[in-house]
């Protein structure tokens, strides 16, 4: 008989205003748009490159992208501060309730939005419902070395801690959950808690301008909480009620 615990819970399990667990602060005043985070993310997470034609169709698979917009016209033209956009790990994520096979689910343990690749059947409902446009879809077998012999050597670099995704699967930023697990595992084996700043995500680790900070938002002592608490922080499309976990610092 089907009891209730067999049905996965959909959506957030915490009320509006409550904190999640992991969060990020990105200082737009410091971000130089140099793409080091994008390269670092792709190398850490086995993100596939898609080539010129497919990227022209908008199929490139960046898990993090740097947005910039123009204001005004020459000579009074200004580029808005660069804004790295990655999965906001919403507390109330629009992608989750629309996934038919429950591949986009909320992790109760880490308070992250998960994408379970083996469940994903590629309906792409989640990407259509994501207001941040941060979910990317594998339109082809970009990682199959039988189709692209170049990958026979390039795949030596793949991170064994991260699944290599295949065609027809949606994917997105995970807040480097493999690093979270590794740090937690190490801390547990040494009988302690994970310290603030002990590990960080690939993007934050690479960022030459130190614009990205990652950590526990439920710990008021952590660096990320203190930065987020400054009065120049804002969250993307917060008015939609998505409870994003990424805070952007604007201005100086």
């Amino acid at each position, binding site marked *: 008989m089907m009891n209730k615990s067999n049905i996965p819970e959909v959506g957030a399990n915490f009320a509006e205003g409550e904190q999640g667990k992991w969060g990020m602060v990105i200082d737009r005043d410091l971000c130089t*748009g*140099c793409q080091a985070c994008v390269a670092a993310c792709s*190398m850490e997470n086995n993100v596939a490159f898609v080539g010129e034609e497919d990227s022209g169709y908008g199929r490139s698979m960046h898990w993090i992208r740097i947005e910039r*917009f123009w204001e005004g016209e020459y000579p009074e033209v200004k580029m808005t501060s660069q804004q790295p956009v990655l999965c906001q790990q919403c507390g109330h994520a629009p992608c989750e309730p629309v996934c038919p096979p429950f591949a986009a689910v909320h992790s109760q343990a880490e308070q992250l939005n998960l994408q379970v690749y083996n469940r994903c059947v590629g309906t792409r409902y989640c990407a259509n419902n994501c207001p941040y446009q941060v979910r990317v879809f594998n339109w082809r077998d970009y990682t199959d070395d039988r189709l692209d012999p170049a990958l026979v050597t*390039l795949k030596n*670099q793949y991170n064994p801690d991260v699944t290599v995704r295949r065609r027809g699967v949606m994917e997105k930023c995970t807040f480097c959950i493999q690093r979270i697990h590794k740090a937690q595992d190490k801390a547990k084996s040494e009988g302690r808690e994970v310290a603030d700043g002990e590990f960080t995500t690939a993007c934050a680790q690479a960022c030459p301008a130190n614009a990205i900070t990652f950590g526990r938002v439920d710990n008021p002592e952590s660096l990320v909480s203190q930065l987020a608490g400054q009065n120049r922080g804002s969250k993307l499309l917060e008015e939609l009620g998505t409870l994003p976990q990424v805070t952007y610092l604007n201005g100086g």
Partner: protein
Amino acid sequence: MSKNFSRRDFLKLAGVGAATTAVLTGCGPASKYVTRQQYLEMPEYNYNGQSTYYATTCRECAAACGLVVRTMQGRALKVDGTANHPVNFGKTCARGQAALHGLYNPDRVTDPVQRTARGGDATTIMGWDAAVQTVADALKNNQPSEIAFLMGMAPDHLFDLVTDLAKTTGINAPVRFGALGAFESRTTLSKASEVVFGQASIPFFDMGGADVVFSFGANFLETWLSPVAYTRGFSNMRRANHTKQRGYFVQFEPRMSQTAAKADEWIPVVPGTEGLVALAIGKLAAEARGVSMPRAFAGVDAADVAVRSGVKLETLERLAGMFANSASALAVPGGAALGQSNGLGTAEAVLTLNALADNLGKPGGVSFSPVSPLNDEYHRPASMKEMQDFIQQMAAGKFKVLFVHGVNPAFELPASLDFAGASANVGQIISFSTFPDETALLADYVFPDHHSLESWGYQRAATGAAQSVLSGAQPVVSPYFNTRSTVDVLLAAAQLAGGDFATALPFADEYEFIQNKVSVLVGEAGGLFSAPDLPTFIAYFQQHGGWWKTEAGFVTPSAPDALNRNINVSEAQFAGEGEFVLLPFVSPTLGEAGANKPWLQELADPTTTVMWNTWVEINPVTAHELGLENDDVVKIVSEAGELEVPVYLYPAIRPDVIAIPFGQGHTAYGRYAAGRGANPAKLMGPHFNEAGDIAFAGMKVKLEKTGRQQFLSRLESRMGVYGEGMGEEH
């Protein structure tokens, strides 16, 4: 589908098919058993399934950033910065991150080869013994004056080895070159610094401590000198804390570069007038401060400069006031401002502003980076004028044998210097290139060096660090292909050649050579570590990824007369004819040699978001006057050549300027680079500034429509140029 075949029938049949497939495939573990190799002998510091980390040095550019590479079971998985390395403090740029796509690139030169005919793809594989014999013969059978080495700006240990060889045997001293060095106008910067500060070196600009930064074309957030170190400086400048305010940053350049995009103010000056603007700001700032007018700025007419530079006089006065009233103002010369016929004068004018700001040797000011260990002074790479001389010697048949390592002159040098043509008069060309690049195609032999992550070595940090730094490199993985270290090849060949060569290089292998070099540091005080003997020192050297002083060692520029000398900023001369000034810039994501790495190609350009190609930036108003739209292919005609490139309507560029990135347009260099984009080096004529650097930004060009279109892949099309219509095609 026939009309009798209903949707319901289709679903029925599909259901039967799906059930069958499920039964056949859904049973138990997939039948894909892989094999796994055991270690023959596991290194004692390894554990199965656990990563081992090695400290080494990045060689994607010459800045000498320290890297820690994560490896597992003999494969390199991830590159990150060395946390306490004085150049990069744990950070990396995109090019450093993508180094692994160079290491595991499918198009590397896998074996030593002999080329059947120069310029052709056909090669025959030879053994390393024959290769070493070939090098030995080349050394032995030619007069020393007929042997030349052309090398890149990294690695330094190989450069030191060839320099030692040249000193003992009388072969030509190695010539170093790199396109990045040319676009940075390193010679101009170093000459100007000699004139103004009395030391021919690259000044260090301490952005982190400055309140106001005026940059005249320096693209320090992209590829300039030591980009990771300068990005850190920028970040510290911008960060307000209890001791300082958020710094204010103004960039003067004709096109909004990625660096200018981060500026609080972008001043689109007329190309070639940056030096005049600097002088005018100096004059107005001196007036604002109420000091007696320094001779350096006395002869400038600010109102005239305002007219010529296209910057309003009020703007100049406002900025000068800001510069004068700041407790810690800094002026930085660089980039396209120095790549003009008057570049040396511009560099002098901008450096002199720092003397006016009285920031020399102070925090937030200009200093000289301490000289690196194993070095007497800063040795700059060859200027373009010196490269022209070198190529003329090649063309005159002076060199019987040319060794090339770590540089790709056939791609990086302006086509007008005709390296390829001159190479026909060189008897034998031996390339040590890791990749089949354009120069390797011109070589008779390619004896591939290891990739930098498979190599021993060291690199000196010329600038960017506060301390004296020798960054150490060690192999993080064993060689993937049948390559051999160039140092080992030269050492073995020198022994075979005998005579002076054998006495000059009496080392068994590269490791012994490096030990010999760094042995002078054993027992040196004030270092990161001290070791009583060489083996201990080497162990620490490998563990930490180098050796550096713990105390900052900045040298204060001595400039007693900087303000009291005349500065001559002549009118900029432009070669060629046409309505546009062409501004080539180094692609911030690709750099000079990143085009063969697929993930660097896939990165969006920070300003245009274009991927995988070359574009030409035109002001939208000008473009519409010419009837040009995005993706229209235009022909750029310069005095030296022509190039067909798709148009990108760039909102932040002067209407009389067009800009094109350097980095693409390879004809060889592997599958990801070859046949992609266009190379602006084809457009550059042999024109130089007073210091001998190429006046790469001093060109007038014409635009011709071709009537064709080529669609550029851009990341922004997903969200629209002005942010309208997320998800719509623009």
